[in-house]
């Protein structure tokens, strides 16, 4: 069963089109929803929660129709909004217990699950302090905890890395990866930064101005190419000449050389030539497509 399925989904606010004829089928796992600010990511999440009614088209989440099964969907989906949503005068424990009960958990289970989930997101002693004193990183963890406390089948995370420093960003991405693998909960995570999502996502949906730009699995996006990047210690002009003489296609890119190794023999030629010239081979790396290329050349025809 597909996790999310949309057919010609459209949402208009007057003359503004936030989502424009989106047809996409998302499988279970961690999926990134990428787009510039205002591309319609948050609108899409609210439609998935059954909070906004689509102008046209239809969508199902966990096999439930968003137009008619809103409450059932919200019982089994967790949502972490982009904006701040924590009252400062209660502790994380009290708040998450309350939110667990608001998802229908009996009080005893709500307490147990709160203790569990706060530990999983990495909040320890500070969970008994009022949340007004928390750092941005801790606040993001509580927001994540309240989205997970009722053990949903799917969590929708709206810009979870927003406002975090690089270390906090890494922690959050690692948590998201764990939610998908260790916890076995499917994740839809939005970001306007492709680079950070390609590290944790199984699939990527790229939208621009409410339209689907590309939908692919990370593996295919970042598939290997027949190009090997080499970096040498020393003058590269001689090497460049020798390689071209040997019939290897090579391009110079600053300190790096990109070599086409479509023919397996090219590896040996590169090694022998470098050794023959007495140069040091610093790096020999298979080049991968970067996901950012979706937005540049390769994405234009999608």
């Amino acid at each position, binding site marked *: 069963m597909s996790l999310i399925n949309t057919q010609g989904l459209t949402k208009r606010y007057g003359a503004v089109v936030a989502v424009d004829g989106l047809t996409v089928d998302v499988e279970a796992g961690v999926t990134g929803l990428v787009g510039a600010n205002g591309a319609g990511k948050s609108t899409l999440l609210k439609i998935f929660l059954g*909070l906004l009614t689509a102008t046209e088209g239809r969508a199902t989440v966990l096999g439930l129709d968003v137009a008619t099964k809103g409450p059932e969907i919200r019982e089994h989906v967790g949502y972490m909004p982009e904006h701040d949503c924590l009252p400062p*005068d209660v502790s994380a424990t009290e708040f998450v217990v*309350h939110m667990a*009960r*608001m*998802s*229908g958990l009996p009080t005893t289970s709500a307490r147990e699950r709160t203790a*569990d989930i706060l530990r999983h997101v990495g909040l320890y002693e500070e969970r008994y302090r009022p949340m007004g004193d928390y750092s941005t990183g801790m606040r993001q963890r509580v927001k994540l905890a309240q989205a997970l406390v009722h053990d949903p089948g799917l969590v929708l995370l709206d810009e979870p890395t927003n406002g975090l420093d690089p270390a906090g960003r890494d922690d959050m991405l690692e948590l998201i990866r764990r939610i998908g693998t260790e*916890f076995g909960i499917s994740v839809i995570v939005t970001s306007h930064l492709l680079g950070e999502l390609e590290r944790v996502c199984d699939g990527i949906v790229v939208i621009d101005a409410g339209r689907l730009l590309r939908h692919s699995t990370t593996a295919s996006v970042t598939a290997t190419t027949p190009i090997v990047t080499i970096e040498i210690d020393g003058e590269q002009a001689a090497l460049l000449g020798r390689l071209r003489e040997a019939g290897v296609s090579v391009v110079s890119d600053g300190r790096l050389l990109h070599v086409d190794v479509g023919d397996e023999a090219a590896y040996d030629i590169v090694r022998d030539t470098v050794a023959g010239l007495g140069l040091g081979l610093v790096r020999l790396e298979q080049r991968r497509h970067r996901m950012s290329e979706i937005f540049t050349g390769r994405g234009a025809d999608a």
Partner: protein
Amino acid sequence: MPETDDAPGTGAIHDIGYRHYDGPRLGASYIRRSLFLDTLRGAFGLGRSARSKVMPFLLLGVMVLPSVVIGIVAGYFGFDALPLGYTEYVFTLQVAVTIFLGSQSPVVISRDLRFQVAALYFSRPLSRQEYVQAKYAGMAAALFLLTAVPTTLLLAGALLAELPLADQLPDYLRAMAGCGLYALVLGGIGLVVAAMTPRRGLGVAAVVGVLLVLSGLQASVGALASEFGNDTFSGYTGLISPYTLVDGVVAGLLGAESTIDQAPPGTWGAIVYLTVALLLVVGCYAALVARFRKALS
């Protein structure tokens, strides 16, 4: 790790990994009831910091103290009736009720708007209508406690002063019905006014201001009308302020003595009062639902 290491009392924490929840998921009525109780507790500052308990309990004290004093005095001096009637009690202490409403309405409703917690409620099974129902009921229950507890203590005092129950009960029951209506009418007004601004201080000032202005307006228009001897018009001036409105319903419909001498004129007057009170409650509910529909979309 061998089991022998798990001797009781060593307090080792084991990471047992993520556990799924397969227990019951209770439906909307459980969630609404939980939110109602949470709102009621929150209105008295329970489950919050010690500082947030000061105001509600101070005001509860202000409401309760006179009833206790009246009971003691009535018993000591052997009065044959209470010096302050059941149905007059809340009206007489309306300033305390107004301040309670002003200080606690923003606690009940504006927090969710100001800190955008509302988004988290609406991403859960509860609908906006059910959310508003729980909040409104919680606020009304808090106001009912604030007014019904002293009214009941008044009855207890009267019985301890050995006043006959048969004399006391009818008026006490009228007063309790009045407390219920006060709770619904005032709670609605307080929440609607507080929900208009996410800022707490502004909410407090606005709620207290609106009620004081309405009371003042009612008093002066009523006095003017009496001065000109127009009894019918003067009888309807009670519609201006929520306190005189509820007082009018209790007096006109349930036959209590009007606290102000401007009872609604006749049966029709009583019906008009009741209709206005009910419309006010329904209107406040509708306004709150509309407010929260706008809050997240």
